[in-house]
């Protein structure tokens, strides 16, 4: 079976600025990959290229076997994306918003799927509320529901538990684990929550200045950097504090 994501020599240059510098990685099906790095490391640019929102300067991207340069819409129908930084129309109710995306993704029996998601993510009481009247945490949950509307085989998540209280954050993480186990979906996760990355991710890509500077499972990285938690590994890399042992 092909990898869910296969990226080769991926480069993005804006004039003289090199945002992403010839990165290579693959995400096997069913894996949860963490994309970590400081601000300006190239994470958002990489995700935007994976989504087809940004055309790479060089390199290739294959998503679910589709070449994103030639066949991105076939891949887009089988994947989805959530970010607290992209909003849903504020005046539409939660149910209306989800219905819009249900149609855009060709979801059969949309209202049944919305009811399922509302029950699983615990927002049945919010369905008729305008999206603009929700709290930040509620919006994050609805954005996650939107990203699951088409039962995606590949889920790209940017800060999926940002703005959530610890209890709801934990519920969402548990739900993501269950979703991956039940569907075999692949998840690519950009997060600054290191505990979340340690818990959810099978592999981590550490980005700095547009390059992948290290990679491995959370346990492998902890061992190689001689640290007890991933936050210290992150700081070691970002601040050039300590080299990994080979």
């Amino acid at each position, binding site marked *: 079976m092909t990898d869910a994501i296969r990226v080769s020599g991926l480069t993005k240059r*804006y004039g003289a600025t090199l945002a992403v510098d010839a990165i290579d990685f693959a995400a096997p099906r069913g894996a949860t990959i963490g994309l970590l790095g400081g601000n300006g490391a190239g994470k*958002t*640019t990489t995700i*935007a290229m994976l*989504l*087809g*929102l*940004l*055309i790479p300067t060089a390199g290739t991207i294959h998503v679910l076997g589709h070449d994103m340069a030639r066949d991105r*819409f076939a891949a*887009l*129908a089988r994947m989805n*994306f959530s*970010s607290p930084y*992209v*909003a*849903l*129309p*504020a*005046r*539409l*109710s939660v149910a*209306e918003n989800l*219905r*819009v*995306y*249900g*149609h*855009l*993704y*060709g979801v059969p029996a949309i209202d049944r799927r919305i009811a399922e998601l509302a029950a699983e993510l615990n927002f049945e009481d919010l369905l008729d509320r*305008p999206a603009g009247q929700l709290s930040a945490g509620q919006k994050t949950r609805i954005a996650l529901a*939107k990203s699951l509307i088409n039962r995606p085989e590949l889920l790209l998540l940017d800060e999926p538990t940002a703005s959530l209280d610890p209890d709801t954050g934990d519920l969402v993480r548990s739900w993501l684990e269950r979703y991956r186990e039940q569907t075999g979906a692949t998840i690519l996760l950009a997060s600054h929550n290191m505990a979340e990355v340690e818990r959810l991710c099978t592999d981590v890509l550490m980005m700095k200045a547009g390059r992948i500077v290290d990679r491995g499972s959370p346990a492998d990285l902890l061992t190689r950097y001689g640290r007890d938690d991933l936050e210290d590994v992150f700081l070691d890399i970002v601040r050039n504090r300590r080299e990994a042992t080979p």
Partner: protein
Amino acid sequence: MKIAMSTSGRRIWGLMYRHLALYRRSWPRVLELTYWPTLQMFIWGFTSAFIASRIGVGGQIAAGILLGGVLLWEVALRSQMGVAISFLEEIWSRNLGHVFVSPLRPWEMVVALIAMSAIRMTIGVLPAILLAWALYAFNLFDLGPVLILFAINLMAMGWWIALGVVSLILRHGAGAEALAWSVLFGITPFAAVFYPVSVLPFWLQPVALALPAAHVFEGMRAALDTGIIRWDHLAWAIGLNLAWALAATLLFARQFRAARTSGALLAIGE
């Protein structure tokens, strides 16, 4: 019987549903659709009535031509704004990121915006047409079936101009949004809406004749004044619309790709 929609049809409907739901929940937006065309009809209707009362039979014909021009120009205006403002709604709600990473093709988005524009135009212009009939005894439908061809040509012109505006917004961000309201007003003096092309200075006439609207309004005046249908003007309007629509489509495709290259789609609201 349940009609199975094609996958493209469902995506187009999805985007239309988004805008229809918005109108259902926002009465000021619905009011805005009818406000300006109705106001225009009051202003120009009374002006026409005044002209007709002063000049007599010739004045009545001139008044009819004036009212016909106002109503049909609203068709073009509302069609252009319908596409451009629906696109801007996505920017204002910071929703474009979700829309452009969905399987919705750019051409499907354009079709959805055009369909919304047709609905917006109908809601906006129909009350003004009824008002012209009720208050000033001017029935636009007296033009006969050719009115449909006039209206379709003006709607098409509004759509390709809007596609050009959307292309500029893709290229320059929300900073170009003022064009959504102003661009067609800038064309009005050359579109021969209220006077024939021959009134324009000689050097401006080719500019007017390159616009489908000028041919539509020449045709409308001929129909109202003499009852003759000028098929030559209609043929020109159709041909020009096709040529301009092709140019606008190429511009849109080029700017959409440029926005994906420059990263403008990531920060289009700024």
